[in-house]
């Protein structure tokens, strides 16, 4: 049985509007939190829930909140990261588009917990139509007394502002986001200081993903203990997965993190299997930055155990044989996909999105892209594969922000698991232009019909 905490009401007619949302039990969590709980108690509750950041890194949200500095007389801010630009990730869009009030509700509670009287939603520019939805919801919430001055008579004031980005993936990195929010060029800051000490306008700031903040609502509603019972181990609660690629039913799914990867791909409740009866070749399970896994390592770990859709299991085996939960962008590749081309496409993305501040990322991403293009177009040499490996190795860990790593990992994983495909391209310069390498040794075990 699947549990739905976030998307439970997503299909209720008119749920985007305040009246319907409220009728369906919306804003109960705000009432409970603001009237019966102290900010500290909310932070404790979120800690106890085990909620981990849904933006990619999976850092425990309650812990992050408890780090925020509280110097006397200095305002604090909460910033909602709605920049969602990682290829393959589109879960936040779904949440904001269909359940804007759920996010607003989460923001009110979280702002109260953190002591933020001005909270920002930083949304990617390409989501051009969503700011209107959010702003409309903010107006509705304000008209009904959930925002503004002295909310519910508690003395707590809050305004929520929507700020559009201008189309840069890097502005999803929290310190670049902060710079951009301040009206500057979106370059990541050099840390320390961390946002919890010096964030927006040098004030203590917490940056959280849309889904993380929305998840605060069910945590307050059902209580941390109940929330923590869902899922497994340190993967508590539910997670939104945006599934795409060669599957029958692409879309956004809410899963509790006990299901296996195999079930997620093949069951009709989720992806509904590989499209056109093809076979599974590989998958990028957590957004374009995380390592790609061949089918055989995706469904089972290197130890031969079933792989599950949760933080621990997806990263089982480290980067050698595992991957990451990341942002939940689940990209499935069937037997007709070319890993070299796929890697080239990703490298092109990272080269285009690097902010250019630090030399390894600025120069290395462009270099990798050029070499991958060369191999992809049948002009590569064997030495290029080793060169690629060396370049990604020299980028990883040596940059200001994790975009450098994010650019290096997909290349590293592709070479690690699909080296034969790269070599085939080099050895068959003409054939590789007209035909794909296919499955090779990565065929999945036959899917078990549900």
């Amino acid at each position, binding site marked *: 049985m699947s549990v739905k905490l976030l998307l439970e009401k997503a299909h209720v007619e008119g749920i985007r509007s305040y009246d319907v949302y409220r009728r369906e039990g919306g804003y109960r969590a705000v009432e409970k939190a603001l009237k019966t709980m102290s900010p500290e108690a909310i932070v404790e509750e979120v800690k106890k829930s085990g909620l981990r950041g849904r933006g990619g890194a999976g850092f425990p949200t309650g812990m992050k909140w408890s780090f925020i500095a509280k110097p006397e007389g200095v305002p604090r801010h909460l910033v909602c990261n709605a920049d969602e630009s990682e290829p393959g990730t589109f879960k936040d869009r779904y949440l904001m588009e269909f359940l804007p009030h759920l996010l607003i509700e989460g923001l009110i509670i979280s702002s109260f917990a953190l002591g933020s009287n001005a909270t920002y939603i930083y949304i990617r520019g390409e989501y051009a139509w969503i700011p209107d939805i959010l702003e409309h919801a903010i107006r509705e919430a304000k008209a009904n007394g959930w925002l503004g001055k002295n909310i519910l008579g508690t003395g707590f004031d809050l305004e929520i502002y929507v700020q559009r980005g201008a189309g840069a993936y890097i502005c999803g990195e929290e310190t670049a986001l902060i710079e951009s929010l301040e009206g500057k060029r979106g370059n990541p800051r050099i840390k320390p200081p961390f946002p919890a000490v010096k964030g927006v306008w040098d004030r203590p700031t917490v940056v959280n993903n849309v889904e993380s903040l929305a998840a605060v609502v069910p945590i307050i509603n059902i209580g941390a203990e109940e929330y923590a019972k869902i899922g497994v181990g340190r993967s508590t609660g539910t997670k939104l997965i945006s599934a795409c690629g060669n599957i029958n039913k692409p879309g956004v799914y809410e899963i509790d993190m006990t299901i296996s990867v195999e079930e997620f791909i093949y069951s009709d409740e989720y992806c509904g299997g590989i499209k056109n009866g093809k076979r599974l070749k590989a998958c990028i399970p957590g957004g374009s930055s995380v390592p790609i896994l061949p089918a055989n390592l995706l469904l089972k770990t290197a130890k031969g155990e079933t792989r599950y859709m949760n933080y621990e299991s997806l990263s089982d085996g480290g980067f050698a044989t595992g991957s990451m939960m990341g942002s939940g962008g689940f990209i499935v590749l069937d037997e007709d996909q070319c890993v070299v081309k796929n890697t080239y496409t990703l490298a092109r993305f990272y080269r285009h999105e690097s902010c*250019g501040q630090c030399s390894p990322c*600025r120069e290395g991403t462009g270099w990798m892209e050029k070499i991958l293009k060369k191999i992809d177009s049948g002009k590569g040499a064997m030495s290029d594969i080793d060169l690629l490996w060396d370049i990604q190795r020299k980028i990883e860990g040596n940059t200001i922000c994790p975009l450098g790593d994010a650019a290096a990992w997909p290349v590293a994983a592709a070479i690690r698991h699909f080296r034969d495909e790269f070599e085939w391209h080099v050895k068959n310069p003409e054939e590789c232009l007209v035909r794909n390498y296919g499955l090779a040794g990565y065929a999945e075990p036959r899917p078990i019909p549900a």
Partner: protein
Amino acid sequence: MAEEKKLFKVTIDNITVEVEPGTTILNAARLVGGEVAPPAMCYYSKLKGSGGKCRTCLVEVAAGSTADPRPMPKLVASCRTTVMDGMIVKNITSERVQDARAGIVEFLLLNHPLDCPICDQAGECHLQELSYEHGKEGTRYEFGKRTFKKHDLGPYIQLHMTRCILCYRCVFVADQLTNKRVHGVLDRGDHAEIATYIEKALDNDFIGNVIDVCPVGALTDKTFRFKNRVWFTKPMDAHRDCPTCCGEVQLWMRGDEVFRVTARKDEWGEIKDASDGKTGWICNECRFEKKDAKDWIIDGPTHVSRHSVISANHYEKVIQPQETLPEVMGGRNPKLLMDIHSISEVNRPDIHLSEIEGPAHSDDFNEP
């Protein structure tokens, strides 16, 4: 009663120094000096907020502090990491650092034109020095280098964007020395460039200082372009009573002719403090308009201690030869010879130019 300030002990490449809390690893290493000081292409101690970008100064922290001796998992930018008491840092003693640094140098040179023979910065270019010291021979990059649309920054400052390493120093100068910055970094990634948004000259009394902070030949002095090579000119300290700036400069002279005026630099290539204790930024008038020796009161030859093409400067010690060196060497000054030979291991790095009687000859540098 003022309490005695506790100093932090930090060990860099097995050498321990004591520094004030808040000191960066890089500045602590500069106290040790020599090779222990990591190369810094973007950090500039006189510019607030600089550093952290080029990654040439990466070092390994083998122990975080006495209290928490765990090593740091990643290499850290020494220019932006402050020391802790009991920290153990490895720079030249770390293979990881050497490997990463070689990678950084390769990255920096990837799109760099390597047109040093026609670049005005040649001889005083930090990227040249970095490549000599840490770079590899040859390149693994086989693609075309990037090019940019030309931007004219006005009558004084020449921009060669292809040579820029995006250290942001010139941006900090404009932010911190002028009231209105009109240039900056446009676009992003490997297509990011220094430019003004709408074609505009850089026009401010102090904007000329971008030339001095630029580690490469991306920003050079238009009034000096192609007039001479730095190693043919002789740096002299000079000053004048300037209403705008400290008026303390370095003249780059050949004979009695002033070819170029720059601020005075220290051994790290940074602008020195002037006698009033403030950073010796100079104004455009001193830099671009005062090209007559008569404009200046000359204090004497510049003393620079660090070795490099121009800075390995031993004018003060040189035994005056009978004939002038340029006469014998066809215009060449000993400092060029010094550099070529001191970087070459097969020759004699131990020999001091001032010990050679008369004009130096290449034989003087061969193994005895």
